[in-house]
């Protein structure tokens, strides 16, 4: 037995232990053990010591309350920064958020007037999550349901949430992964329809500026009802189906009521899977992808406005009617427009956050 460990062995062993050894060095170490059987025991002992270790002396504090303190600290720091730079982006974003909140409040006020009997006795909303353009968010509700909120959307629920029912109110687009609870149905209220589930995953798109509401089911089952008099009764959706509900303007709703003729207000479509990764186009946004498949440029522009937080106007209807398909992932709005120019003929000008799209000059 040598009294001191040989340098070459220390080199080979340290590289083997750290996982940094090359295949040649590992072979060399094996050869060393074969040629120096007296070192075998020492090597094994060091290997055993290396891999056996106690848990950390200091346990990190990873409970929610502690994490929330970190967030609050970061946010209060945010506020100080924007306080001194009132014209900064953060300041503008804050003001937008305020307007978004105000708009939501106004929308709720309207809803309250329209469906007074439904909300009688309910406390005002207590919890709200809202996103502005160009921003997406993920929240976990008190019952454990996970919600992804797309740009320019808001979700709120009140104190009674999770008591007998789990009711939320949505404006905009959200993806829900609902925690199973047979006793307490989960209900998403939109401007025109309600979606009722027990435990499932689905996407709801209900933007005020669009004339339709879409509910896409990923798995489980959902029930869609229209409480506002456009009697669609209850529609049961199966996985990979999508319900597209045609919103009626108040005027249109009255005139159809008078004439007694009811045009179909909804249709059920199959959801198309993208072959490559069998993901839904409808839910691609939660993976930060803006997917479009045969949309008109005008329809895509509406999505882009929310996605990139811009305003897009067309000066030419032919351009607005182009059919496009593709996907944006990390592109800036300029990258995205340049990519579109590869597949379609148009010009664009950007002025701050407003974009004008025009016919390409010959």
């Amino acid at each position: 037995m040598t009294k001191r460990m040989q340098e070459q062995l220390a080199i080979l062993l340290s590289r083997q232990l750290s996982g940094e050894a090359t295949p040649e060095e590992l072979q060399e170490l094996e050869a060393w053990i074969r040629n120096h059987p007296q070192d075998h025991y020492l090597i094994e002992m060091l290997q055993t010591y290396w891999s056996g270790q106690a848990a950390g002396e200091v346990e990190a504090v990873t409970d929610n309350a502690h994490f929330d303190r970190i967030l609050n600290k970061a946010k209060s720091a945010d506020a100080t920064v924007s306080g001194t730079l009132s014209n900064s982006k953060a300041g503008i974003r804050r003001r937008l958020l305020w307007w978004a909140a105000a708009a939501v409040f106004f929308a709720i006020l309207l809803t309250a007037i329209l469906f007074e009997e439904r909300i009688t006795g309910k406390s005002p909303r207590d919890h709200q999550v809202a996103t502005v353009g160009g921003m997406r968010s993920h929240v976990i509700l008190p019952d454990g349901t996970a919600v992804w909120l797309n740009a320019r959307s808001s979700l709120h629920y009140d104190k009674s949430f999770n008591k007998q029912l789990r009711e939320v109110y949505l404006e905009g687009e959200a993806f829900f992964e609902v925690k199973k609870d047979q006793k307490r149905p989960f209900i998403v209220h939109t401007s025109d329809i309600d979606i009722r589930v027990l435990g499932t995953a689905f996407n709801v798109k209900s933007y005020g500026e669009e004339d339709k509401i879409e509910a896409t089911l990923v798995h489980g089952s959902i029930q869609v009802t229209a409480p506002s008099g456009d009697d669609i009764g209850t529609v049961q959706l199966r996985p990979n189906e999508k319900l597209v509900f045609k919103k009626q303007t108040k005027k249109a709703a009255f005139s159809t009521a008078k004439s007694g003729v009811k045009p179909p207000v909804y249709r059920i479509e199959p959801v198309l899977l993208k072959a490559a990764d069998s993901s839904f186009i409808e839910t691609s946004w939660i993976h930060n992808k803006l997917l479009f498949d045969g949309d008109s440029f005008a329809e895509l522009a509406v999505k882009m406005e929310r996605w990139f937080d811009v305003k897009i106007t067309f000066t030419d209807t032919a351009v607005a009617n182009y059919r496009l398909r593709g996907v944006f992932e990390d592109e800036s709005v300029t990258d995205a427009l340049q990519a579109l120019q590869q597949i379609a003929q148009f010009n664009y000008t950007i002025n701050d956050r407003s974009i004008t799209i025009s016919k390409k000059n010959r």
Partner: protein
Amino acid sequence: MIAEFSKPDDASFEYWKQQIACGNEQAFRSLFNAYAPRLTAFAFSITRNREASIDVVDEVFVKIWRRRDRIQQIENITTYLYTATKNTALNLLSRKAREVTVDSFDFIDVALRDDYAPDQQLITAEILSRIKKAVDALPPKCKLVFKLVREDGLKYKEVAEILEISEKTVDAQLVIAVKRIGDAVGKYFDYFPARFQKK
């Protein structure tokens, strides 16, 4: 896809970065839960104070959230977090010193985790106490390299980046550590040679 979201593995890093950049608090929470234990232990090894090490890690994460618009520029989140923790901890130790250099580790003796005797006949309590003594007697910088590679499982490249030294130095320091431990155990063999005779 929900499970993917909260699982702290390498594949999630890019997704976390994207999500944190656009203000997703849940992704930020996942990142925190994945790293806070290791970083707190690392901060503790420098500050040797439980409260201080928690404060250090809090400060690192507060900064991440405050500058989340720039998080996409971070290439390796592991080395970034360790470096930030190191700098914050050193700053705490010497508030006056504006400049933080790695030379600090020639003077600051880091704390190591308390090893338990592995449930093996191979390492007796006596041998373990000898190994511990040898590890504890390592020069400060050498001990820190040993800790980061063994306890935190970091690669040479990552340790080099965090401590602002070359990979060669990391390699050399670890060889010194292994050799010293080997020597300590080897001496023990000399005292009780018959006990360890192998056929």
